[in-house]
Every structure is written in C-alpha cells, then in structure tokens.
C-alpha cells in the first residue's frame, strides 16, 4: 500500500535476505541500478476501498486523527475510494483555520459517516479505551450464528 500511495508499481524491502519469507510470499528480486546489488520488492496493493475511523471530520471529508495515525494515512492515499466514519463533525471553517492539523484531505474522500463511539468496543484514544465487557460480549457471541446475529442487532443503537 505504501507503493500504491506513491503511485509506483512496487516497493524495495530490506531485511529479507536469509529468511524463508521471499519464497513463501513469492517475492521477486530486482537489481538496484545504483549499487548493482539485488533487492527484494513487494508489489503495489491498491485497495478498492479504505474505511477509516477518525476523531473529527467536516462534511467534505477533511479529517483529523489525534495521536498515532497507524497506517491510516497510507491507506487513504493508496485506496481508490475512501469512506470516513467520525466521532464528531466540525464546520469546514475549523479546518480552514488550522490546515496543519488536517491528516486526511477531503479530496481523497467519497463519503463521511457521523458515528460517535464508532470504534466501540475497541479504543479510540484519547476519547475512550478498549471496553473489556464489550470485547467479551463479542467473543461470547461470535462462535454461534444465532448469537452473532443477536449481538449485531443489539450492539448498535
């Protein structure tokens, strides 16, 4: 996805020599034209859709993520289309006033969904932590089709 975010067909990856990973993952090698050493390359992956939960967005899809963005920014740049779910909707003028806080530019975004608590039962720091009882409720329900259906019908408002 890093390669797709940059619009390049593959990405050199260091640190794989001497492991079985290139063989099990079917990775190709190319000759580095500068050092003339072989380097493993992974192919570009361009998802059809990236769906990312953010803290704040406006109705154009400009978005802020507080704390670590993880891989989310690469995902939004790599994917063909992006959907954001957001804890809060803010007016666009808030984003215009602080453009340096915008992590996802709206030009990449197809749709925005207001979903307060949208990461529950997982964490959305600093707003809320993992909800242990919420995770356990899922784990109890997940093994049976009926229980899972019941879980899905009652967990969201």
């Amino acid at each position, binding site marked *: 996805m890093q390669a797709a975010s940059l619009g390049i067909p593959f990405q050199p990856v260091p640190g794989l020599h001497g492991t079985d990973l290139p063989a099990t993952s079917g990775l190709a090698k190319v000759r580095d034209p500068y050092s003339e050493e072989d380097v493993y390359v992974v192919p570009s*992956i361009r998802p*059809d859709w990236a769906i990312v939960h953010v803290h704040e967005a406006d109705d154009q899809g400009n978005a802020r993520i507080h704390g670590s963005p*993880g891989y*989310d920014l690469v995902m939004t740049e790599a994917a063909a289309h992006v959907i954001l779910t957001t804890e809060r909707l803010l007016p666009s003028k808030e984003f215009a006033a602080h453009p340096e806080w915008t992590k996802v530019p709206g030009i990449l975004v197809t*749709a925005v*969904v207001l979903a307060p608590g*949208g*990461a529950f039962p*997982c964490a959305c720091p600093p707003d809320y932590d993992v909800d242990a009882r919420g995770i356990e409720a899922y784990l109890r329900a997940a*093994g049976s089709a009926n229980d899972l259906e019941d879980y899905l019908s009652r967990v969201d408002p």
Partner: protein
Amino acid sequence: MVRPTWPIGGAGEDVSRQHDAPRSKTISLAEAARLIPDGALVTFGGVLLTRPPAAFIRELARQRRRGLRLVKPSPAYDLDLLCAAGCIAEAAIGITTFESRFGQSRQFRQAVERGTIKLREHS
C-alpha cells in the same frame, strides 16, 4: 488596461455563487456500507484493538456482504467479526490477535483451519 478573461464569469458578472459551499458528503452508516460491493478489496484503519471502524464493520456483516478481500497489517475485531459472519474470502495480513487477556482471534483461526478463507500472511 485589458481586463483578463477568466474561465468562469464574464467581466462584471457576480462569480460569488461559484464559491458556494460544495455538496455535503455525509451519508448514513447503512448507505456507506452499501457502497462496498461483494468481492471488493478493502482495508480498514486502526491497529489491533485501537480505532478500527467497528460500527461500519458490523453494518457490513448485517448487510451480509460476501467475498470481501481484506488487506491490513494488523486487524483484530474487524477481521474476526467478518470471518464469523461469513463475509471474508481472503485476507492478506501481518499479525492478528485480540491481545492481552482476550487471547487469539478464534473465528479467524477457525475460518483458516476450515479452509473457508484464503490467507496470505506476511509477518
């Protein structure tokens, strides 16, 4: 002096309406999930139990999406739930676990063991 001719709006024409606020992109959770077709290659934000789009994942499961192919370095609840609901055909991942006291990702593991999903694991 020659007045420049702009692509939009002639001289003296009020062009302020060209700058009206663009149309809102906000839609409902159900409408957003319907944008994802069966068989789509998808990726979800967040790392393990931090900030996945969990409400969206559940809506995909309620809509009984099928054949999804997930690529994500470190899924957890999202991949496990979609495996439990039969939505996933293929997963390309680095690591998946519920972490700490919650243990392994059991529905994902069972789907791999039963051969109902194809796994490409890159850790």
